[in-house]
């Protein structure tokens, strides 16, 4: 909300006008200053003058010679405008004045006649575009008075953020009340007197929807003259960011800005019949609003009908049919109060947010309606003439009464204390317009303009706010049993380890495109769909982290990267009941990686490994080692999107936890990623679950016995089986075993691989003798043979 300082000063005597100090006060009272503009007149030396006489120019017929009094006797000014007559009050730029755009005014002679200054138009003053004639001032302002005074310049306009719980603060009066309470100064409403004539409103109102319409008040103003508002009204509105329309319409906005209650002016003669009915619309009914749009109504829309049909949308925008026009002579001024959610839904439904709707959806005080109406009627008479019959309309739909809230001083001190005394609490609440009775607890009568205050906690907030958040101490409570859980610590360890080997953690948007699923051959059936996506790309939640990572690789490749290594941890979603809460869809935390290009320790800028299936398996073993997992095992698998010969499913202690391997080359091509891509996706839960505490075994001090065995094994068999079988056959003496050569070709039968393994045996308590080693070796060979692996050369 825009708040012009000099207008605000009509409501409150501020102890300072310094914009910085006032900004702090606005901030601290809860109406954050988004910014402020300091407005300066675009001119110097322009004063009020009165045109005493007008004579023809002896030598020119388009310009006239005026004698203008600016408070020091008549001075001669030549003027080319014709829209004024003798006696008009005008803005006079004296010789030496500088006008908007830098125009300097001097004494000069025009066709032989001397001119001592200039009578100004709005445009020349930078106040508007009107250049059709000079600016004729309203009323009889004092001659010689600085013209800038009339438009309240200089001025400061504050842009305030009003929180959605404060309908009352969307007005100068409400702001003044809050500021006054905080600064300890009084606030007031400048008086406007309405003189009425006998008679009453000739229109009736019938509120059919009493929940939707809380109150409807109306006054008629008869015999108005629609025209332009006076300068001061137009410029106050302009500073507040409201466009001037006509005197009557401007009054509705002006009073709304002052009091916070929106108003609407009907052309009373355009209302068909003599009865307005407030009710919900029929589906498909149409109403043309003031902005020229035709609105198709729904049965939830609350509308004002006359005998011909809908004529106004409640609380959001009036209808074109009963709009005030230049020919309007009789006005029905409406100040009605509406159910906040009804207006909120209606304005969103129609994409129609107006000054009125933003106030009504916060909850405008129905008990303010008649005061606003009264004030508006008085102002219409002042600006547009006319008379107001004393009988006004006032129909109550739903009564809203002040509430009484009991507040114990101890409750204040429990939440924001210590140290608040009864009188301090009571004093603050009274300054906010509340009525306080009783000693302790205080019985607080909350006015209806504060619908946000209904409970002791709400009063406590008011006390804190007006006391000043900056005046509270700073203390720190200490929690008792903090710390990360084992899973949280293991996750950090895992993430650090992956970063440590050279993988970057990615954060991708958790949505998935349909094209991603098609490319990867992932099933679409279980996808969790968004009901109201903003964009199609945000319509499906990811069932896998892989697509997001592949898209990130593609993005990097498109920007020139040759090697990209990414991992991500995050939730994936499936549309079936969650184990956490059966009402929710399944959402499991996963770890994935996707690596393309070269990888690992670098030589001359290039990683010494290439991303491919074996790299993925190595990373998985690394993850297992880092997390101390001993029960990881792989078996060949063909999950969607993977290279069918280079993928495995992963089990941890017999439980399936994901897949690891290489991306299918077809998929890689579809993602425009050159070369092979190492990928994996694992459930984080089982990976991070606490493991048993490892127990130490002291390293043996005795020398090892090493020997190599070279086996011929069918390429269709798993080498892992060979390793586990021979290690098991070797018994407790086996310290380590690793493959040091794999060979096919000359000397190896077709369909076989030669796999050379180095075994190391060691005893904890003695040096092994050849006699001890030989049978172990033999047992290994026999075990291998039993599974179809022959000793090479045997």
């Amino acid at each position: 909300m825009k708040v012009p300082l000099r207008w605000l000063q009509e409501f409150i005597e501020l102890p300072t006008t310094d914009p910085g100090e006032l900004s702090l006060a606005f901030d601290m009272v809860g109406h954050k200053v988004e910014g402020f503009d300091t407005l300066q007149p675009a001119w110097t030396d322009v004063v009020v003058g009165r045109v005493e006489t007008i004579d023809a120019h002896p030598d020119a017929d388009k310009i006239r010679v005026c004698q203008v009094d600016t408070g020091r006797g008549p001075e001669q000014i030549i003027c080319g405008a014709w829209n004024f007559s003798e006696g008009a009050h005008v803005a006079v730029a004296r010789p030496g004045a500088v006008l908007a755009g830098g125009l300097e005014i001097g004494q000069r002679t025009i066709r032989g006649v001397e001119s001592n200054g200039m009578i100004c138009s709005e445009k020349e003053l930078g106040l508007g575009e009107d250049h059709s004639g000079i600016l004729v001032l309203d009323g009889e302002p004092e001659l010689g008075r600085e013209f800038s005074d009339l438009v309240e310049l200089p001025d400061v306009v504050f842009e305030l953020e009003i929180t959605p719980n404060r309908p009352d603060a969307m007005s100068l009066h409400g702001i003044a009340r809050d500021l006054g309470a905080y600064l300890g100064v009084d606030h007031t409403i400048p008086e406007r007197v309405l003189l009425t004539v006998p008679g009453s409103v000739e229109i009736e109102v019938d509120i059919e929807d009493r929940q939707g319409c809380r109150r409807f008040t109306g006054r008629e103003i008869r015999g108005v003259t629609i025209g332009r508002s006076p300068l001061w009204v137009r410029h106050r509105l302009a500073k507040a960011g409201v466009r001037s329309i006509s005197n009557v319409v401007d009054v509705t906005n002006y009073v709304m800005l002052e009091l916070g209650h929106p108003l609407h002016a009907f052309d009373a003669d355009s209302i068909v019949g003599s009865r307005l009915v407030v009710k919900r619309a029929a589906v498909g009914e149409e109403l043309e609003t003031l902005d020229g749009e035709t609105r198709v109504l729904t049965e939830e829309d609350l509308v004002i009908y006359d005998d011909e049909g809908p004529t106004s949308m409640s609380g959001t925008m009036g209808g074109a049919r009963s709009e005030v026009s230049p020919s309007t002579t009789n006005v029905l001024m409406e100040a009605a109060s509406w159910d906040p959610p009804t207006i909120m839904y209606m304005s969103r439904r129609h994409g129609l947010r107006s000054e009125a709707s933003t106030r009504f959806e916060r909850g405008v005080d129905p008990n303010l309606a008649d005061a606003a109406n009264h004030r508006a009627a008085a102002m219409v008479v002042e600006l547009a003439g006319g008379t107001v019959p004393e009988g006004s309309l006032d129909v109550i739909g739903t009564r809203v009464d002040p509430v009484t809230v009991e507040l114990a001083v101890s409750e204040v001190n429990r939440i924001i204390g210590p140290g608040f005394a009864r009188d301090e609490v009571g004093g603050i609440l009274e300054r906010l317009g509340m009525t306080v009775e009783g000693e302790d607890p205080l019985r607080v009568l909350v006015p209806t303009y504060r619908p946000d205050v209904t409970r002791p906690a709400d009063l406590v907030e008011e006390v804190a706010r007006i006391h000043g958040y900056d005046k509270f101490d700073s203390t720190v409570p200490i929690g008792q049993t903090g710390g990360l859980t084992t899973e949280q610590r293991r996750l950090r360890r895992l993430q650090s380890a992956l970063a440590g080997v050279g993988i970057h953690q990615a954060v991708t948007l958790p949505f998935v495109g349909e094209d991603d699923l098609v490319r990867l051959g992932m099933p679409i059936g279980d996808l969790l769909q968004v009901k109201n996506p903003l964009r199609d790309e945000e319509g499906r939640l990811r069932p896998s982290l892989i697509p997001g990572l592949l898209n990130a690789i593609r993005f990097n490749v498109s920007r020139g990267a040759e090697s990209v290594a990414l991992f991500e941890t995050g939730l994936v979603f499936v549309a079936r009941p969650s184990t956490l809460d059966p009402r929710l869809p399944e959402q499991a935390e996963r770890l994935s990686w996707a690596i393309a290009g070269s990888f690992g320790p670098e030589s001359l800028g290039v990683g010494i490994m290439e991303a491919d299936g074996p790299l993925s398996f190595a990373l998985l073993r690394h993850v297992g080692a880092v997390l101390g997992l001993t029960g990881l095992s792989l078996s060949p698998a063909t999950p969607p999107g993977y290279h069918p010969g280079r993928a495995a499913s992963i089990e941890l202690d017999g439980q399936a936890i994901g897949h690891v391997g290489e991306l299918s080359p077809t998929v890689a091509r579809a993602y425009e990623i050159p070369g092979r891509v190492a990928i994996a996706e694992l459930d984080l839960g089982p990976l991070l679950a606490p493991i048993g505490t490892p127990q130490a075994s002291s390293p043996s001090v005795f020398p090892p016995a090493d020997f190599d065995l070279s086996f011929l094994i069918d390429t269709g068999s798993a080498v892992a089986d060979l390793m586990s079988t021979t290690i098991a056959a070797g018994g407790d003496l086996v310290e380590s075993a690793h493959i040091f050569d794999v060979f096919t070709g000359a000397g190896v039968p077709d369909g076989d691989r030669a796999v050379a393994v180095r075994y190391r045996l060691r005893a904890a308590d003695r040096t092994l003798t050849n006699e001890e080693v030989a049978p172990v070796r033999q047992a290994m060979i026999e075990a291998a043979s039993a599974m179809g692996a022959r000793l090479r050369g045997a």
Partner: protein
Amino acid sequence: MNPIKALEDALSGAALSIEAAGSIDELDRAESSLLGKGSPVGEVRRGMGGLDPSERPQVGARLNEVTESIQGLIAQRRVALELLEERSRLTDDRIDVTMESLGFPNGSLHLIQQTIDEVVDIFVGLGYRVADGPEAELGWYNFDALNTPPTHPSRLESDTVYLDYGATEDEVLLRTQTSPVQVRWMEQHQPPVYVVVPGKVYRKETTDATHLPVFHQVEGLAVDSSIRFSDLKGTLAHFSQEFFGPTTTVRLRPHFFPFTEPSAELDVSCFACDGGEPGCRICGGAGWLEMLGCGMVDPNVLEAVGYDPATLSGFAFGMGVERLAMVRHGINDIRHFVDNDLRFLSQF
């Protein structure tokens, strides 16, 4: 030849040939020609058996003396030569130390992760636990239990992402804040509660330089028997000083949130200009940076989880992780966080 004479000749000639050896190899050869088989000294040793027994002690004694002397000279020369050779190897080994030939790959934790970890650690230091919860959440946890009425505009489909799943009355949605985890935590734990909740949140936002449909928050909650407003203020002041630096000052400004009462926004003093430098690139001259929302837990929230609001009180706060990181690291476009451009990721 007289063996004694032969030994004396060998000894007098030895120094010269040992000095002449310019490398360890040459020295080894010199050693062999001075003391080895076929050398004059070697010949004397070999001929010892044929000597007259009366000569033997004298020749034997001299043989040992001469052998030891020559060996001494060789050992001396060997040390000198080894030193020389090592010195020349060091010269040959010289490399251009400024050339990067080998490297370890630089992986990284995402800046979001680093920021979350840092924030979480500050609160862990104050005795908080860390919780997480579902991102697809029920309307009850995301809104109702947090004192947000059914007619609140934030529940409109224009603001919140709803899922095509489950019963209509369950309002399955993508959580708009991490606060529902507060509720789940309180349902499962008895007070006192000190917990922080990092995680993803979702809003129906059009992506631009300052908005993403998905971003991260860290939520904090403390509920205990005597938590007051000053505790909120002090806790966030401590956090801000840990995160932004020890000279950081904070202020709380009244604000409105459905789930706290009183509510506040926290401003921290600008760390770039130290307050109010006109046109500061970080704070724009305001001197303050709007950092997070907070407040005292609304009694309705405590009641919704079965806590007694008459005896318990608490505070809660929620901060945007991207905002924290953007402010601290001078990041001008929030989309950098999800582009995953390696050149961005590897800066942190």
